[in-house]
């Protein structure tokens, strides 16, 4: 093979390392998470893309009420409805029925809120914005 011609063992090992590095880089660029975030970025508005790059979340405007929602990176309970001051009021949980990468889930949530807010809120579950409480320590009686 051309890649291995004319070199000693050291040069062959270097070539193999280069091939492995190339393969790892190719695989990383094409894994579901990376592909989904690439698709999400293609469909975000320029403002949403800038906000997502800077803050790891972006905001959308509901199509029926004009309310603002913040979509965080994630797949579950990652949508927050914001009040007039931009503070979280409560969270909404809805997602595609098939298991998808986070970027795909976030894009589906964005499109649903921007095009058919009433329908998606009708199926979504409202959740608290408070962080989940830590499990209590239960002392076992001996």
């Amino acid at each position: 093979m051309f890649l291995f011609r004319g070199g000693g063992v050291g040069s062959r090992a270097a070539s193999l390392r280069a091939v492995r590095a190339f393969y790892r880089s190719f695989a990383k660029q094409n894994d579901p998470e990376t592909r989904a975030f690439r698709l999400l970025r293609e469909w975000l508005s320029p403002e949403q893309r800038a906000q997502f790059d800077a803050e790891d979340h972006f905001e959308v405007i509901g199509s029926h009420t004009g309310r603002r929602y913040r979509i965080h990176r994630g797949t579950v309970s990652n949508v927050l409805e914001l009040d007039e001051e931009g503070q979280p009021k409560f969270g909404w949980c809805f997602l595609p029925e098939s298991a998808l990468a986070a970027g795909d889930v976030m894009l589906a949530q964005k499109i649903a809120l921007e095009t058919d807010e009433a329908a998606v809120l009708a199926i979504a579950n409202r959740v608290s914005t408070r962080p989940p409480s830590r499990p209590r320590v239960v002392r076992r009686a001996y």
Partner: protein
Amino acid sequence: MATQIVMDRTGDSRLFFEQDDRKQLAEAEERFKKLTGQGFTAATRTAAGDLNVVRTFDPTVEETLFYPRLVGG
């Protein structure tokens, strides 16, 4: 060349077709009907970036994105 993008466990699958090829157009329409019949939502966007959900196949649309039915979590 037009594209139908379908979200799936690999991230997405992209199906390309020529809009002036009647056979490819018919296949794209068939795919549209099959996916929306399975509960997928079809979304398009304008050049200005406005999103639309579409219920019927439009042969002039350059890019259509399909995502699975949404459920409460």
